[in-house]
Each structure stands twice: as C-alpha cells, then as structure tokens.
C-alpha cells in the first residue's frame, strides 16, 4: 500500500460508517416495531368498541382518536345510524385482517433489530481488529525498527546492508534517515582524509623547512667559529647575526608546527611519573646562560618529594618559556623566583619577576597567538609571539590552567596548575 494515510482514512471511515449506518438501521427497525405495537393496541381498541357497539344498543363513548380517519367515521356513523351494520361488519373484517398482518410483521421487525445490531457490532469489531493490525504492523513496527537503526547509528553500529524501505510515509522517513546517515558518514570520511592530509603536510613541511635550515645554520656556525680559517671581527659579527636570526627562524618554525599540531589534535603527550625538582633543576641549568647574560638571579623552590604525571619535555618547554620571559623582562640584578605550591589537590607552579608588569587589558591577550608585549629598551625581547599560546595549550592538554597576576610597575606572576601529582614513595611509606 502506497499511502498509510489512505489506509488510515479507509479504516477509520469503515469503522465509523459501519457502526453508525447499521446502528441507524437497527434504530429504525426498533422504531417501526414500536409503531407496530402502537397500531396493534389501537386496532384492539377499535375492535372492542365495534364489538360493544355491535352487541348492545347502548351508546359507546369514543374517548380516543382513531387513525386512519375512516375507522372513526365508520364508528361514529354507526353510532348515529344503527342500520349501517354492513359497513361495521366490513370494518371488523378489515381490522381483523390488519391485525393478522401486523402480527405477521412483528417477529420480522424484531429479527431485523437484532440483525442490524449484530452487524453493527461485527463490523466495528472487524474494523477495530484491522485498525489494530494496521497500527501494529504498519506504524509501530517501522517506528521501532527505525528507532533501533537510529540508536545503532548513534552507537557507531551503522550497517551498510541495503534494504529498500517501503514506499509510504514511514518508508520515506527511513530513506531520509539513511540519506542523512550516509551524508554524515561521507563527511566523517572527508574529515578523516583531511586530517590525514594535514598531518602529512605537517610532517613534510617540518622536514622541508628544517632541511635547508640545517645547511644554513651549519655553514654559518662553521664559518663563525673559524673552523675553515680565521675570520675578521666584522665578518664574525655579521655571521653571528645571521646565525642568531637563523636560530630564531628555527624556533619560529618549531613553534608554528607545535601549534599546528595542537590545533590538529595531533599532540600526543608522553606522560610519565617524574620527580618535579629534577625537572626544575634541569630547566634551571638550561636557563642559566640566559640569566647570566641578563644579570638576573634564578631561584627555584620545590618540595623534593613531589612527583607529577607529565610529559616532561613539554612541561619543561612551558617552564622554560615562562622563566625566559621573566628573565627577559626583568631589570638587571633582580631575581626570578619559581615556587611550587600545593593547593586544593593541585600543584601550582609560579614564576615571579620584578619586571614592568602587564596592563590588565593585556593580561588575557598575551595568551593568544602572535601577541607579545614589546620593549624598546630590552634587546633580549625578541620572541616569536607563540610561546604563551603553546604553553597554554600544553598546560590545558595536561588538564591544568595557566594565568597571570600582574600590576603595572610591580612585576608579574605567571602560574599554572598540574592536577596529577603525588608525594614520592619514601614519604608515602613513612607516612
């Protein structure tokens, strides 16, 4: 059947009209039967009056109306003129045969009432049954089936097995769902392809960018350090500049690729339990050169028993970024202090400097890409503008948060939290 609505209308009208139709017929038959009873009663009346009139000479009171009119007229005429006996006899005869006819009609009418009622019930029962079957098989079954398919799709169990849905309203709904699902799957497929293309691009780009830089950096470094032969001081300083800028370009490429990987969701963390103070010591050692050239003192304070579950290279990258920023912006002979604080189940790493501070309106912006505060006095401030964006991404990948507390003129405190940490075994055992 092509249209559920047509079937529904047919069944609905069948049940409605069969019930009302036969009900009306039954009612009609019942009414005829009542009328017949009425007529019979009248006829008895006529007969008894006529009988009385015929037998005795006393006046008969006609205290009822007779239909059809001729019966009344006959009786009244008989009252007036006792000689019209023939007409009375004739009336009695007709009345008797009329009664006989009515008696014959009575069971016929009774049966008709019964039959019509029965038909009305049978038809409504049959149409209800058809209606029930129709709802069950053509409406609820497809709905449940479609619902199951949708649940399966949501639970990633979509099957490609082909089956043509019925050509009706629910079937069209099912087809629409199939098309929708196919569209979603196609798009997922496209996205997967795109993702793969992106990671291939990242891999190729990093290789193709770093390979020429290897040669440039190598050549400059060999020349600058006089491996090929002594160079005069001016050449050396130019080579130094070229070398520094090459390093900056390498840093920029590394950070751009890091950021691209983070944004592509291809930033796997290699997490391990690591004593935090060891990592800090390593980081401090690597920053010592920069600190000395800026005449800044580094102080790292950490509880030696804290262990954290982190990707140590990445967290070192974050600490290096925060600490080197702090060093770059610190005045000569000041201190950059790193503290580790336990707070609300997290540990917080704070890097404090006594630099110029950050204006409140810039405190959110500095974590965005390519945003950096510039300083004309400080030549060390020459970054890529990506460091803090990467730091934030790394910290967030670890489930932590990064923020800054700063007042212009009073220095800044950059802090980030790490949530997976514990005290080392020695402490846990003694406790």
């Amino acid at each position, binding site marked *: 059947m092509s249209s559920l609505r047509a079937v529904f209308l047919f069944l609905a009208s069948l049940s409605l009209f069969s019930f009302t139709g036969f009900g009306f017929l039954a009612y009609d038959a019942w009414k005829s039967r009542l009328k017949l009873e009425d007529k019979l009663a009248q006829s008895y009346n006529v007969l008894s009056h006529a009988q009385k009139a015929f037998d005795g000479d006393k006046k008969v009171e006609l205290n009822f109306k007779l239909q059809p009119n001729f019966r009344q007229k006959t009786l009244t005429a008989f009252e007036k003129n006792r000689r019209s006996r023939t007409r009375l006899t004739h009336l009695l005869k007709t009345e008797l045969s009329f009664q006989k006819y009515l008696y014959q009609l009575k069971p016929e009418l009774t049966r008709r009432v019964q039959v019509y009622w029965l038909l009305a019930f049978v038809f409504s029962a049959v149409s209800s049954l058809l209606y029930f079957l129709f709802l069950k098989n053509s409406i609820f079954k497809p709905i449940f089936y479609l619902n199951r398919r949708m649940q399966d799709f949501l639970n990633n169990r979509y099957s490609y097995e082909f089956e043509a849905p019925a050509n009706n309203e629910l079937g069209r709904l099912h087809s629409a769902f199939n098309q929708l699902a196919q569209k979603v799957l196609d798009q997922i497929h496209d996205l997967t392809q795109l993702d793969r293309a992106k990671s291939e691009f990242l891999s190729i780009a*990093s290789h193709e960018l770093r390979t020429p830089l*290897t040669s440039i950096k*190598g050549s400059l470094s060999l020349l600058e350090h006089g491996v090929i032969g002594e160079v005069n001081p001016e050449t050396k300083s130019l080579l130094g500049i070229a070398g520094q800028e090459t390093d900056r370009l390498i840093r920029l490429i590394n950070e751009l690729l890091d950021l691209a990987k983070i944004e592509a969701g*291809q930033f796997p963390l290699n997490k391990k339990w690591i004593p935090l103070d060891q990592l800090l010591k390593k980081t401090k050692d690597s920053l010592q050169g920069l600190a000395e050239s800026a005449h800044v003192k580094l102080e790292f304070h950490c509880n030696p028993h804290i262990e954290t579950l982190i990707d140590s290279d990445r967290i070192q990258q974050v600490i290096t970024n925060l600490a080197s920023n702090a060093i770059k912006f610190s005045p000569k002979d000041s201190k950059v202090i790193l503290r580790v604080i336990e707070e609300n189940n997290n540990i917080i790493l704070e890097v404090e400097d006594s630099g110029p501070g950050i204006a409140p309106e810039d405190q959110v912006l500095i974590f965005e890409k390519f945003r950096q505060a510039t300083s004309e006095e400080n030549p060390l401030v020459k970054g890529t503008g990506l460091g803090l964006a990467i730091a934030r991404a790394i910290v967030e990948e670890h489930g932590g948060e990064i923020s800054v507390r700063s007042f212009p003129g009073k220095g800044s405190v950059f802090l980030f939290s790490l949530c997976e940490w514990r005290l080392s075994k020695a402490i846990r055992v003694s406790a």
Partner: protein
Amino acid sequence: MKILMAEDDLNIVTIARMALEKIGKHEVVVVNDGNAALDKILNESFDVVLLDEMMPKLNGREVFAKYLASNKKHNRIIFMSANNRDLDDKPLVFPEVGFIAKPFDPMTLSQQIEAIISGSAHKQEAV
C-alpha cells in the same frame, strides 16, 4: 672514530663531514641512499652510523628494520631527522640507538654523538 653517514642532502653532508673531520677528527664515510647504507651497515664495521630518516630508495626506518632483522648487531645506529619524534605514529624501539634532531649545531655534533654513545654504554652496563 670511523663514522658512516647515510644522508641524501649533499649540503648537509658537506657540513657534517667538515664538522666531524675538522672538529672531531673522525673518519667519515658517506653514502647517499638507503640501499647503499644497508649494504655498508651489514658488511662493514663502524664506530657509529648516522642514519637519515628520509632517504631515496630505502628510508632510514626500513634500513634499520632490515638491519635488526639480519641479527647482526655490530654497528651502533644514531637516527638523524628533521621530523619531530612525536609526529611519528609508531615510535620505534631503539636498542642502543640515539636520535639527533635537525637542524643540528655542527660545533657540538661530535660531542652529541659521544654523549649518545657513552649514554648507551651506561645503559648496557646497567642492564
């Protein structure tokens, strides 16, 4: 030290050779593709092999896999690559092997190699 360098980029070869020969005073043998590298690694002995990851014919990983499959373990292999390690889908297990990222600093290349060799020697002692 006698060093085998498998590298297809001739500029990098020039720089690395200069760095290793002039600064580290090592002896450097160069091959330019994976097949040649595999041939040398299997049949000759070197103190260390610097193996580029992306090479024509046979890439560094394939060379390394074939070397491991050959059951010969007379050469120490150090990978050199311009790709970040963490971009790899499957990190290789590196028995007695190190990794030097490009761009490297030619002034400290010899030191890096020596550090990796002594590091792997320590690891072996520990095992």
